[in-house]
């Protein structure tokens, strides 16, 4: 029965499948278009398992349809009594052995990949970032560089960046689908994983373990830039003067208010590894406000004046004196001009 497309039909179908999957979701978020080492490992296994499983499903469906068509009770057969078969040794052996083989085909690469992704033998010499999960934001401390950021994680392409992750409160899970699979961020131990991005880009990250009301808003970004740009960024961040006065008068008032309204009690500008709130050193370069809002002054004012409406259950609400709309605008002006480096999302090709 060689008809349309002939024997190549199955191949063609899998090609279609791959195309279909590739069209799924938004670039730099979807796991269907891997842009990093971990995501590729996962995707290879996903495709392998889909192929095996589709094969099994096809056989089941084929037998199923034939059975239903052939053996459905027909008119005039009301009194027909089928032969009472006990079983069939050969058949039963076949459908025990074949699945065992199929499972083995999947098991071997799974084990290999599991050990491969857990390999941390070169972590000593690589870039190490301490990641702290908090309700509902991420803290990144570049170990050995005295640089801290929050929400936007800058990494160089083509290099393994080791993340040593721990939570300050409940369990979170660090997931950047297009670069790597996820790993939990536990309060009692440090979990290490690595990111290796192949291309420059701004990749969307999400928290994948229920952590409270704003779990779904605990988004972050991984910004992959070239190694040279990365080094530049690190040195820019290191040379920030936290006390620098902004040029703009409104922003100057904002800086004063930032201290007056006790923002500074939690939020550090410049290196301060133990600050309890998000580090704001490069706030003006942030891709989002509160993890998911566009970085506009309007959104920032909203976030400062009424954080509960932006992120339910956040830890900022109620921890600072009342801020009027006007004061919030001044603080916003100050924060949005904090842009210590020329390396931003635009350097990542966005």
């Amino acid at each position, binding site marked *: 029965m060689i008809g349309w497309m002939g024997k190549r039909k199955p191949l063609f179908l899998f090609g279609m499948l791959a195309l279909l999957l590739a069209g*799924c*979701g*938004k670039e730099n*978020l*979807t*796991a269907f278009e891997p842009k990093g080492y*971990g995501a590729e490992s*996962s995707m290879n*296994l*996903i495709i392998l*398992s*889909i192929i095996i499983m589709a094969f*099994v499903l096809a056989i*089941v*469906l084929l037998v199923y349809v034939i*059975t*239903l068509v052939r*053996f*459905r*009770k027909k008119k005039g057969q009301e009194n*027909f*009594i*089928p*032969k009472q*078969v*006990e*079983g*069939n040794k050969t058949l*039963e052996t076949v*459908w*025990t052995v074949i*699945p065992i083989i199929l*499972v083995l085909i*999947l098991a071997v690469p799974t*084990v290999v990949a599991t*050990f491969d992704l*857990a390999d941390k033998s070169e972590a000593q010499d690589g870039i190490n970032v301490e990641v702290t999960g908090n309700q509902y934001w991420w803290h990144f401390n570049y170990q050995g560089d005295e640089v801290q950021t929050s929400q936007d994680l800058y990494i160089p392409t083509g290099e393994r960046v080791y993340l040593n992750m721990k939570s300050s*409160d*409940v*369990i979170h899970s660090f997931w950047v*689908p297009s670069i790597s*699979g*996820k*790993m*939990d961020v*536990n*309060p*009692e131990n440090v979990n290490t994983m690595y990111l290796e991005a192949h291309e420059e880009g701004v990749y*969307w990250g*999400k928290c*994948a*373990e*229920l952590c*409270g*009301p*704003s779990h*779904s808003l605990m988004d972050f970004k991984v910004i992959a830039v070239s190694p040279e740009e990365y080094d530049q960024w690190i040195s820019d961040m290191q040379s920030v003067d936290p006390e620098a006065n902004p040029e703009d008068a409104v922003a100057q008032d904002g800086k004063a208010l930032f201290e007056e309204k006790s923002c500074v009690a939690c939020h550090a500008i410049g290196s301060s590894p133990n600050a309890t709130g998000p580090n704001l050193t490069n706030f003006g370069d942030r891709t989002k406000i509160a993890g*998911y809002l566009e970085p506009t002054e309007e959104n920032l004012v909203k976030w400062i004046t009424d954080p509960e409406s932006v992120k*339910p*259950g956040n830890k900022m609400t109620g921890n600072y004196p009342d801020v009027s709309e006007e004061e919030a605008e001044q603080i916003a002006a100050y924060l949005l001009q904090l842009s210590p480096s020329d390396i931003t999302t635009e350097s990542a090709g966005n």
Partner: protein
Amino acid sequence: MSIAAAQNKGFLAAVWDYLTTVDHKKIAKLYLFAGGFFFLLGGLEALFIRIQLISPENDFLTAGLYNEMITMHGTTMIFLAAMPLLLGLMNAIMPLQIGARDVAFPFLNSLGFWLFLFGGVLLNCSWFLGGAPDAGWTSYAPLSIQSPGHGVDFYIMGLQISGAGTLIGGINFLVTIVTMRAPGMTYMRMPLFSWTTFVTSVLILFAFPALTVGLFLLMFDRMFGAAFFDVTLGGNAVIWQHLFWIFGHPEVYILILPAFGIFSDIISTFSKKRLFGYTAMVFATILIAFLGFMVWAHHMFTVGLGPVANAIFAIATMAIAVPTGIKIFNWLGTMWGGSITINSAMLWTLAFIPSFTIGGMTGVMLASAVADYQYHDTYFVVAHFHYVIVGGVVFGILAGLHYWWPKIFGKILNETLGKLSFWLFFIGFHLTFFIQHFLGLMGMPRRYWVFLKDQGLDTGNLVSTIGAFLMGVGGLIFVINIIYTSVKGEKAPADPWDGRSLEWAIPSPPPFYNFKQTPLIRGLDPLWIEKTEGKGKITPAEPLGDIHMPDASILPFIMSFGFFIAGFGFIYQVDHKGWLAAIFVGMGTALICMLIRSLKDYHGFHIHKEELEREAD
């Protein structure tokens, strides 16, 4: 009490009868109604979830309420709907299938039900008392420790009480099957549904205590200041995950194995064929149960247990595919060469095969640890477990209800309505969940109160919500079918489906003593054997004689109520020590009931031979 007294009663007497009953068939009805009620409740919660996710950044529910909704949907469906409905079917049918007059511990059977019901009611009281639990049905510490209010406390006490009930039910079924099979009913002649009841009960027995301990630890931390999960005092939150999944994974098989049994019986009956590879089916069931205890950590691939643990659990998990595959092919083998009748019960069964196969396939995909780093805690997982739990368990329950409804209630469910509800539910189901596989890999984690605009997730979620509503309508039509049938339904004969197993040899509904004379079993499918080779009816194993029946008792109800009161005491003593009184009163009530039960002799009563003779055959 006599047979005559068991009939002709007023409404209040009927209520009293059900409160005190120890008859497995009446307890079955109680399980079915309570489970059905909670199923509708859980379904409503599901619809609220889907309405919230109909469009990006929707604000139909607040973030807190959404988390309560998902927690209660999962908890309700697993503990208060699926399990009780299955326990109901087991109670109704298993003793009939093995030719027993009752279960081994009728009193405990009733206690098991009332504990479940009061536990479920306690849990749902949280809605009206400051908010439901909101840490997910898995209730991971430390989120569940930090959760404000009393929601999680209700989760702990409600599940602890209803879990005790389930454990009691499991032991009861085990002993019943071991000691009370009719003469000739050897293990290898038991219908598959009785077999799966047996294996499921073993799973309940060994799985639930782990949950019990887990819940105690949570309770001690939240209510009595212990430090199991408090990192600052050396606690370790991963312990909860281990305990929860040591229970939780076998729980999946506790749900699916009885459904496998139901399908086996139905396929065999409606193909008019003996179950293909019966022995392999039995051993596959046992093997699945055994492996079910070896794979709990595949729920924890991303916890950071290390590559060795991940690899071992990945392979163990994949191994389960083999016995499951054997089952699927044996079902196909049973139908092959048969004479297949397609009615509502069979439609649900036929729908199960491809749906569950897909669920099983995604299960193997999830077992591949590295691939799971992407799937884990996303909508892919949501899709997977709904394919196995809805496509397997719920389809199984609905198939079983259509199949055994005549036996349990004496009326045949309406076919037209049955088929209508099937098609709506079936199409809705695939519409809802198939697309969720893709949503997960496109970057949508589970338990997300909102998904953001412009992330390519809008269409999938909309489709999913539409499907959920179709399922809702399908479910509603099933309820209408039940009402219609109980008012106008056709009265069922003893054996409406040309059945094969023992339950079809006695009237529909069965008399309260089940078998006038204990049957003699000559092989697998005993009724079929007598129909084709014998004289068309079961040979009795004993002459007509007095039948010994257990005494009814109100104690299980009162005892469970005592635990219910004590549950409130435990929850609220944190706020005010005065509530300790409720603990003493509640526990005291329960203890006094136990004492009465111990001190008073329960000898049961006899139905006399003469009364039995007066009953028409």
